[in-house]
């Protein structure tokens, strides 16, 4: 459909977006028509005709008019802020129980890992009707994960884990773009998101080689990189146990409190000297340069599962 201008609407966010967009467009057309009409009518009415003396018009009661349109503009500005923000507030948090996908961006490709561990390149198969959270990491520069049909976009910033969520509503193949300029083949850093009916998705998944989940990779690394030597229970070294750590408030040696989220764990691995947990010596070695970006994410994912085990116990 080369003439169609509406992008496909294939997620719950897309429905909300299209409502707001239509309303703003209607409002804008009204204002453009109003200003256009004012200019046009005044130009016609008050144009100078050769040889005709100027008509005298009463001065406008300008203060009242000015207050009036300032108030009207202020009302619409605040109204539209309220109207659009309430929609975005609803969409911040992914619903509980969302499927977790991990996507790694690098110049110029997208590497996807399914909750089951299956891997894909420049493609992402998801079931329709289930919320999906995508954890995004970059190995080099800033990229941006953009699926127009879902109306979602999230910058993928190196050094941090970004998340974005969506719930596909319609089976189909949708374009995935990199929206943040990232170098030579920026325009080629595209892929597809395939939304499938749940049954089809299950069948598709069976045909894929079962890969290692991110957390399983992390568990392996936890031992091979030497983390377990200090952090495993029963170790001689005085290092904090990581069970139940994720999401907890941690008191630091300098008196601050931080939440042990993904960024905190990441920083603790790569910059261990920065935030020392209260009651511990700063003896953790620096792992930057020894671990790759994806490996850090795997370790963080593993540490998260330790908390989930703790919670389910």
């Amino acid at each position, binding site marked *: 459909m*080369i*003439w*169609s*201008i*509406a*992008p496909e609407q294939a997620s719950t*966010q897309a429905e909300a*977006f299209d409502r*707001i*967009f239509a309303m*703003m467009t209607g409002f*804008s057309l009204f204002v*453009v028509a109003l*200003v256009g009409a004012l*200019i046009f009518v*005044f*130009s016609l009415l*008050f*144009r*100078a005709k050769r040889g005709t*003396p*100027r008509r005298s018009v009463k*001065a*406008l009661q*300008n203060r009242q008019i*000015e207050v009036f*349109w*300032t108030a009207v*503009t202020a009302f619409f*500005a*605040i109204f539209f*802020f309220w109207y*659009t923000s309430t929609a*975005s507030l609803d969409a911040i948090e992914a619903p509980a129980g969302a499927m977790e996908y991990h996507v790694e961006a690098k110049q110029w490709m997208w590497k996807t890992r399914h909750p089951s561990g299956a891997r894909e390149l420049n493609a992402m198969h998801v079931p329709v009707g289930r919320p999906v959270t995508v954890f995004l990491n970059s190995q080099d520069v*800033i990229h*941006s994960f*953009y699926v*127009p049909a879902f*109306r979602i*976009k999230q910058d993928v*910033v*190196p*050094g*941090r884990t970004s998340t974005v969520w969506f719930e596909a509503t319609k089976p189909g193949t949708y*374009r995935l*773009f990199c*929206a*943040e*300029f*990232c*170098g*030579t*083949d*920026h*325009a080629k850093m595209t892929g597809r998101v395939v939304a499938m009916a749940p049954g089809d998705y299950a069948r598709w998944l069976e045909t894929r080689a079962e890969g290692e989940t991110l957390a399983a990779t992390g568990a392996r690394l936890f031992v091979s990189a030497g983390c377990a030597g200090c952090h495993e229970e029963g170790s001689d070294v005085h290092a904090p146990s990581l069970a139940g750590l994720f999401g907890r408030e941690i008191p630091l040696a300098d008196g601050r409190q931080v939440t042990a989220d993904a960024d905190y764990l990441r920083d603790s691995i*790569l*910059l261990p000297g*920065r935030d020392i947990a209260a009651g511990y010596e700063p003896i953790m070695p620096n792992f*930057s*340069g020894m671990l790759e970006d994806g490996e850090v994410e795997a370790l963080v994912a593993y540490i998260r599962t330790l908390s989930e085990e703790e919670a389910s116990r």
Partner: protein
Amino acid sequence: MSLTDTEGHIAQEPDYLGAGHSVRSWLLTTDHKRIGILYLVTLVFFFLVGGAAATAVRLELATPPGDLVSPDTYNRLFTLHGVIMVWFFLVPAVPSTLGNFLLPLAIGARDMAFPKLNLASWYINLAGGMLALAALLLGGVDTGWTFYTPYSSLYSNSYVTLAALGVFVAGFSTIATGLNFIVTVHTQRCEGLTWMRLPLFVWALYATSVVIVLATPALAIALMMVVLERVFGLGLFDPAQGGDPILFQHIFWFYSHPAVYIMILPGFGVVSEVLTCFSRRKIFGYEAMVFAILGISIFGFFVWGHHMFVSGQSATASLVFSLLSFLIAIPSAIKVFNWSATLYGGHITFEASMLYALGFVGLFTLGGLTGLFLASVPIDVHVHDTYFVVAHFHYIMVGGMVSAFFAGLHFWWPKISGRMYSELWARLAALLMFVGFNFTFFPQFILGYMGMPRRYHSYPPEFEMWNVLSSAGAVILAVAYLMPFVYFGVSVLRGPRAGDNPWQARGLEWQTASPPPRENFGRLPTVTGGPYDYHAQGEEPHAREGDVTFPGRSDSERR
């Protein structure tokens, strides 16, 4: 007073153009009018360079595959277009050319407060421009005009350092000009010209200068940090060294959002002058217009976060920036309504500069309204970094600012050159520019809504039709931009003498000869009332006499 004639003109002294014909008399001048002309020359040069790059970009995008130039060349082309157009055309366009030429004239002064600094600004601007051009000739820069890290600081294999230094150096030129304008407005106003009697053009230049002086250092810092990381490996933005790539965006947009107002505010001033003159009306709501200009320049500093809704900044920050961005629409809307209301009860004629000014109001309205889309978080999430954004800022910058620049250039051309141009061709160019502009950029709103990301060298086939339309429009626009070169050229060579005040405008700059003498005025004028005195209070205003195209001149004006 044998040296001045009955109207106070200095009869014997040659005008500023005749005050020396050597190259040296131009390159070492401290006359603000000549410096304005020097700026105009470099400005036109940079506009042509930036425009050529834009033409190449649109040619490449006329077909979906990336077949005309290589991806690396394409990335260098749009970066060149952005860097040159933003820093070497849009930012200095009105302030440094028309502002330099007209500010002292409009406030009844003989020159800027610091004439030598004024000349130095031009040389600094030239030096910055040459550094940027050197980066381009050596092989180009491929970061986009935004220089986002860590791409610019660690990954880009191009002449980022040189280009960043060029922009850094040019920043000092704008700071010096801004400082000069501020001091000039404070100290050089003629007798009786109180603040609330200043023409809006002067208010706009003043507000712009304040924003320039406060914001440009942030840009200098951001670019210096990029260079330090690139050259010395300082870990400011590199996450592997504990840096934060997002930090750059904060500092950069802290400059670059106010910079949008640096570019558009002078346009507001120009349009106010032109609209009042050709509708023979006082500006509607002068005080509101002044406060709107000041409000925009202050609010402009607190909305930078709306460039970063999808960067991962906190939801709270996004909401606050969203609210502030919606609020800045209020002073902008006041201006649009006041301009429209100024036409009411006027005696309107449609000279070329009036056509540009009316076009400005319409295009700025559309550009401003689409700004509301980008201010709202959920819509921005979809259209951020797509062609919607490209269309939006071209409506403000090209539809708005470039229209205002042309409105001003046509309005003051008789004052600057002393000669008239062909009104017919000028009107034709104005209409063509309006049509070509909408043809080029309206399809880009649709492309953005459809989801085409910006800075794409090739694109999927579903975007083809709108890109073809846009490229076709760009051809019209290019022709329209070349037309003024012809009729202004003809005007300089054999245009009829303009007389001192061909539009019968009321600004102080029109109270002296065209072109003005070196010292601007014989005796400095004294101001007794507010600006835009197109119809004295209680008095029936008279229609303008004479031919619209080439107004009649009295013998005393003919020299």
